[in-house]
C-alpha cells in the first residue's frame, strides 16, 4: 500500500523552507517531489532596476551561508564586462577571504548535518564555535559579521589591518589541529558511519547526466573544480588541486568537504605568505561607472556549494539581463533521483549531503 507524506516547508531537517512530498511503500521511498520557491523574491528582476554597483548587497543574500562568494562573482562579472584588471594584492586578498568563507560555510554544513544524522549537539557546538572564530577574522578584515559588501571594481573596499596575516595563520594552524578532532569523533562513530556509508549513491554517469556540481559531483569521482579547470585568480600559482572521492555516497560527500576545508587552510596559509605589499583598494562606489566594453559576459566561479555562473547582458549603466545559475538548484534536482529505493530515514542524510541553501535555489 502506498502512503504519501508531506515534509516541510517548515521542518527542522529540511535546511530551509523546502517542501518534499514523498510517496512511500512501507518505509521504502518510491517517489519524491520537491517543491521550491518559498523564498522567491525576484532578484534577477530587481537587479535590472539598479545601477551596477548597487546590486552586490542583493547578490550576497542569495547564498546567505557564504555571502562573500556571490558578492565576488557579481563584481567580477561587472569587471569582465568593463574590462577592469584586478590589482595584484587584491587578487590574493580576495582568494584569502573567499577560502575563509568556504571554511565557514563547510563548518556550518558539518554542524547541521551532524545534527541530522543523530550526532546531536557536540559537533554543532564545536563547529559553530570554530565558525565564529573564522567570522571574527572576516569581521576584522571587512568590518561586518555576515554581509560584507567588501568587493569593489578592481579591488576591495578596504585593505586588511596589519595583524591580519598573523591572525589568519594562527587561526589556520588552530583549525589544522582541530579538524582531526572532528574526523575522529565522526568517523569513529558507528551511528554516523551507518547512516552515511552506502546511502544515496550517485553514480559517476548519473552525476554528469543530472548536472551535479561542487562537492556532490566530486564525491562521485569526477575531478572537476572551476578553481583548477577554469583557473582564475592565482589558484594555479598556489598549486591548487581539487579533492575528490570515488564512492559517491553521503560519506564520500562528507569526506570531500572535510578535504576541501584542509585545502582551503593550506591555500590561506600560502596566500598569506606570498601576498605582496601595495595597494588593494578598488574604485569607490559611484552611481555612474564607465560604460561596459563587452555587452555580453559569462563568468564562472567555484562557490562552496558548487559551480556558479553569471551571465550578464549589459545596458549602459545597469544590467539588461542577469542570469544566475545557482548550484543549489541543480543539486536539489537530485532529490528526485537519489532517495528512490532508500528508507525514509535516509532521506535526511541524503538531503543534508546535497547542502541546500534555499535562498540560492529560489532566488
Amino acid at each position, binding site marked *: 500500500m502506498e502512503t504519501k507524506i508531506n515534509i516541510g516547508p*517548515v*521542518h527542522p531537517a529540511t535546511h530551509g523552507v523546502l517542501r518534499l512530498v514523498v510517496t512511500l511503500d512501507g518505509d521504502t521511498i518510491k517517489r519524491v517531489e520537491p517543491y521550491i520557491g518559498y*523564498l522567491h*523574491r525576484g532578484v534577477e528582476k530587481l537587479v535590472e532596476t539598479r545601477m551596477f554597483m548597487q546590486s552586490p548587497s*542583493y547578490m550576497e543574500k542569495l547564498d546567505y551561508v557564504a555571502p562573500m562568494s556571490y558578492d565576488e562573482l557579481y563584481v567580477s562579472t561587472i569587471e569582465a564586462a568593463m574590462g577592469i584588471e584586478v590589482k595584484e594584492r587584491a587578487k590574493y586578498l580576495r582568494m584569502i577571504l573567499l577560502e575563509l568563507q568556504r571554511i565557514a560555510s563547510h563548518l556550518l554544513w558539518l554542524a547541521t548535518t551532524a545534527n541530522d544524522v543523530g550526532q546531536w549537539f557536540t559537533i554543532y557546538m564545536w563547529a559553530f564555535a570554530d565558525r565564529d572564530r573564522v567570522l571574527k577574522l572576516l569581521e576584522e578584515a571587512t568590518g561586518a559579521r*555576515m554581509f560584507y559588501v567588501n568587493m569593489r571594481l578592481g579591488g576591495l573596499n578596504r585593505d586588511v589591518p596589519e595583524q591580519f596575516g598573523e591572525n589568519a595563520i594562527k587561526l589556520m594552524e588552530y583549525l589544522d589541529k582541530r579538524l582531526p578532532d572532528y574526523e575522529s569523533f565522526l568517523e569513529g562513530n558507528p551511528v554516523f558511519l551507518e547512516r552515511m556509508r552506502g546511502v544515496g549513491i550517485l553514480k559517476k554517469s548519473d552525476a554528469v547526466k543530472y548536472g551535479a556540481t561542487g562537492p556532490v559531483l566530486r564525491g562521485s569521482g569526477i575531478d572537476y573544480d572551476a578553481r583548477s579547470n577554469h583557473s582564475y585568480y592565482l589558484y594555479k600559482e598556489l598549486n591548487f588541486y581539487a579533492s575528490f572521492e570515488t564512492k559517491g555516497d553521503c560519506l564520500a560527500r562528507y569526506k570531500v568537504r572535510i578535504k576541501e576545508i584542509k585545502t582551503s587552510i593550506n591555500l590561506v596559509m600560502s596566500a598569506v605568505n606570498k601576498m605582496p605589499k601595495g595597494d588593494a583598494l578598488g574604485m569607490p562606489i559611484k552611481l555612474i561607472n564607465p560604460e561596459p566594453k563587452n555587452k555580453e559576459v559569462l563568468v564562472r566561479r567555484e562557490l562552496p556549494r558548487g559551480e556558479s555562473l553569471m551571465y550578464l547582458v549589459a545596458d549602459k549603466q545597469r544590467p539588461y539581463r542577469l542570469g544566475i545559475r545557482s548550484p543549489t538548484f541543480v543539486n536539489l534536482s537530485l532529490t528526485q533521483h537519489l532517495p528512490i529505493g532508500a528508507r525514509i530515514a535516509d532521506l535526511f542524510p541524503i538531503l543534508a549531503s546535497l547542502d541546500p541553501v534555499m535562498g540560492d535555489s529560489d532566488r
Partner: protein
Amino acid sequence: MSEDKDNAKVQMDKLVAESLKGREFPVNALFTKLSDITKAIADPAVKWSRSNSLWPLQFGLACCAIELMAFGSPRVDAERDGFLLFRGTPRQSDVMVVAGWVTKSMLPQVKRLYEQMSEPRYVIAFGECATCGGPWWESYNIIKGIDQVIPVDVYVAGCPPRPELLFSALLKLKEKVGGKIVENKP
C-alpha cells in the same frame, strides 16, 4: 486534629495577607468575589512563570535563520537565561521568531504556524525583512512587514542582526511578559 486545621487556616490567611500586601485593592477586597481574589494572587505567579519559560519555535526562513542558529552556539550561550529550548512543533512553543523575508507563497504557512501555537503567544520580528520588507521592498513577491498579518511584540533592526540582539530581544520580551523590568539587562 482541630488544632492542626486551625493552624493551617491561620497560615493560609497569613499567606493571602502577605500576597495582597502592597497591591492596590479596594478596602472591601475580602468581600469581593472569590474568583477575583484567586486571580489577584495567581496572576503574578503566572506572569512570573511565563516570563521565565519562553520557548522559541524552531523556524527559520532566510539569512537571519543562520544568526538564529548562531544564537544557540557557544559564543552567545543563550542557555544561561533559559532560551534554548527550540521546539520543532508550534504546539509546544511560546515565541515565534520570524527570521527572514516572508513571501506571498510562504505567508499562509507562517500564519498557520502562528495559529497553531497555543496562547499566549508572542512574535519577534527579527531583521529588516520581517520588520518592513528590508532590501526587497520593491519586489513583487514580498510581504512588507510581518506585522501586517500577525501581531508583533518586539522588532529587531539589522541585516542581519547579530545573535546578541536576539538575546536582548528575548530579554525585552521577558520584561513585557513578566510585566516588570527584569534584573538582567542586555
